């Protein structure tokens, strides 16, 4: 009996193939678009998270620049160069600094060798705290420590790709690598969640590098994390850093180009905000598409019921109860919307899967996925409204007088 009801419904759906197909299409398209849009939004968001994941979000980065405002009798165009003293003063003088490091850049790629094998890699000289800034993950040994720094030890921490290539799977710990003629002892291996470039890096103590490459006291940039400080606190710290440096290097604290300060937290929040708006927009468009589907289903159900007034009248005369007629129409609506909604859902998910599998890594979209709860929720909403769209005219059809319905015009 149950299955026969469905047979009746399938028969009625197949009677109007074109109309059924068009309704199904409008529903499937609505869900499909919603899924693809939500997936694309998620992909954009994933990409941003990915861009930010290399560096600590709660960090402030400072570079020296060139003055653009004359100050204290000094001309514009003066280079601001940081030294170890700036690092010390920020560490001691700015409240809220959690982990701090500076970098002394040694320019260019270095030929680094171990035994017969050699490769070209970048060398970065830092303080021990640097690992908190770049989210460096130690997989063997340790990172640079205070002793390395104070004793200017010739030690190196190498990226896993460096280790893999130079040591061909052998344990690099305690081995020596040759960086441009100077031997460094490997004390650790690390991984980095950032790009491959980060994993091809070699870290050495900043003190060692300054001594070995004629750096003197020079540092190129200073960065520190701020713990769980909020956006306002980090802004206050930025101002404090600027004022401190302005006083030391005699530039106007309002000079925007004398030093460059990047507040990652601020950037992150700004980008997050943009994505919040994009996300909202996507939802609005998606809901609009689904609403169009709903209107389509409602229309079709209305027409379908109207066309079948006679049939329902006859069925009533032959003993159909009003509820059995409502059931017939409502089930038809449910079957139509759920089947086509499912097709749209599967189609959308399939497109996203194809995109994330076959589209090469790029700067715009990454791993587009859809929040299945949202997609299934939208499908459920569509089925519900489709049901309602069937129910309302069906109730009217079920209450008609058969004789009126069957009377010949």
């Amino acid at each position, binding site marked *: 009996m149950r299955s026969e009801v469905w047979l009746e419904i399938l028969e009625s759906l197949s009677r109007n193939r074109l109309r059924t197909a068009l309704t199904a299409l409008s529903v499937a398209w609505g869900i499909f678009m919603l899924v693809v849009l939500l997936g694309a939004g998620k992909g954009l968001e994933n990409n941003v998270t990915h861009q930010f994941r290399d560096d600590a979000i709660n960090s402030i980065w400072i570079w020296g620049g060139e003055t653009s405002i004359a100050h204290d009798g000094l001309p514009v165009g003066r280079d601001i160069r940081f030294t170890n003293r700036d690092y010390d003063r920020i560490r001691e003088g700015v409240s809220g600094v959690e982990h701090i490091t500076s970098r002394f850049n040694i320019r260019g790629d270095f030929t680094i060798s171990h035994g017969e094998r050699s490769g070209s890699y970048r060398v970065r000289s830092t303080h021990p705290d640097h690992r908190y800034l770049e989210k460096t993950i130690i997989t063997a040994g340790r990172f640079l420590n205070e002793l390395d720094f104070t004793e200017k030890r010739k030690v190196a921490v190498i990226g896993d790709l460096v280790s893999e290539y130079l040591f061909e799977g052998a344990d690099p710990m305690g081995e020596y690598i040759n960086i441009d003629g100077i031997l460094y002892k490997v004390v650790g291996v690390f991984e980095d969640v950032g790009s491959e470039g980060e994993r091809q890096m070699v870290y050495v103590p900043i003190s060692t590098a300054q001594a070995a490459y004629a750096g003197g006291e020079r540092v190129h940039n200073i960065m520190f994390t701020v713990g769980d400080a909020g956006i306002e606190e980090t802004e206050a710290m930025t101002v404090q850093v600027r004022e401190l440096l302005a006083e030391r290097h005699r530039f106007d604290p309002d000079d925007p180009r004398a030093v460059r300060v990047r507040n990652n937290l601020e950037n992150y929040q700004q980008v997050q905000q943009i994505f919040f708006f994009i996300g909202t927009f996507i939802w609005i468009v998606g809901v609009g598409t689904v609403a169009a589907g709903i209107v389509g289903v409602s229309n079709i159900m209305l027409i379908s019921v109207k066309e079948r007034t006679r049939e329902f009248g006859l069925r*009533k005369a*032959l*003993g159909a*109860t*009003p509820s059995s007629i409502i059931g017939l129409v409502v089930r038809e609506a449910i079957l139509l919307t759920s089947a086509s909604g499912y097709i749209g859902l599967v189609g959308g998910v399939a497109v996203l899967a194809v995109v994330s599998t076959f589209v090469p890594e790029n700067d715009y979209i990454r791993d587009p996925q859809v929040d299945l709860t949202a997609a299934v929720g939208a499908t459920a909403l569509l089925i519900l409204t489709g049901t309602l769209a069937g129910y309302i005219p069906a109730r009217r059809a079920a209450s008609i*007088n058969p*004789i009126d319905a069957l009377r010949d015009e």
Partner: protein
Amino acid sequence: MVRLDKINKSYRVGGQSLHVLKNLDLRVEPGEFVSIMGSSGSGKSTLLNIVGILDGYDDGAYHLGDTLVKDLDERRAAEYRNRFIGFVFQSFHLLPTKTAVENVALPLYYQGVSRKERNALALEYLGRMGLKDWAHHHPSELSGGQKQRVAIARALVSKPRLLLADEPTGALDTVTSYEIMEVLEEVNADGLTILVVTHERDIAARTGRVVHLRDGTIEWDIPADEFRQRYKV
């Protein structure tokens, strides 16, 4: 079989009350073959609706057999229609997507009879109408007379107490009309009570008794012999 006692029925039309049936009394004995005639607006459709349990009435009493049919809810009314009454319509009203046998089986579907059983029964009734070979044809492939015979089979398949026919020959030519009347006469000869609404005198003349309605009451109610004499048909 049908007992109507002082039936009153009014409709509200545009704020005005229209008194359609006025204290109508009618008795139809089991096995009778009765025609109901009357001009449009005489109340014959309303009478048919009430007897067919498609519509209620304001006061009075309607007994179908021993059953009082009054103030039924929709569910109950549907059940009574299904079990007690068979309908035949002027324009057949067969479902175009169903074959003849499926159309005939439809009332049994609403009784919850299994597919196999009801198709067997439907085929048997089609056979009685001489349409066994047409069982798997769709209505569009049948002639008007054949369609009406399918509709009669459908009305009979649920073994009703009463057959109601609303202008059953209205859409047919004279020869076919008489064929259909022959079928109804046979069915009546088997003991089924039949009520036919018609405006054709030659059709009414072939029944056993003619009831004429006018302005919501029975104007006259005479045996068919008398009717034939009166109108020379």
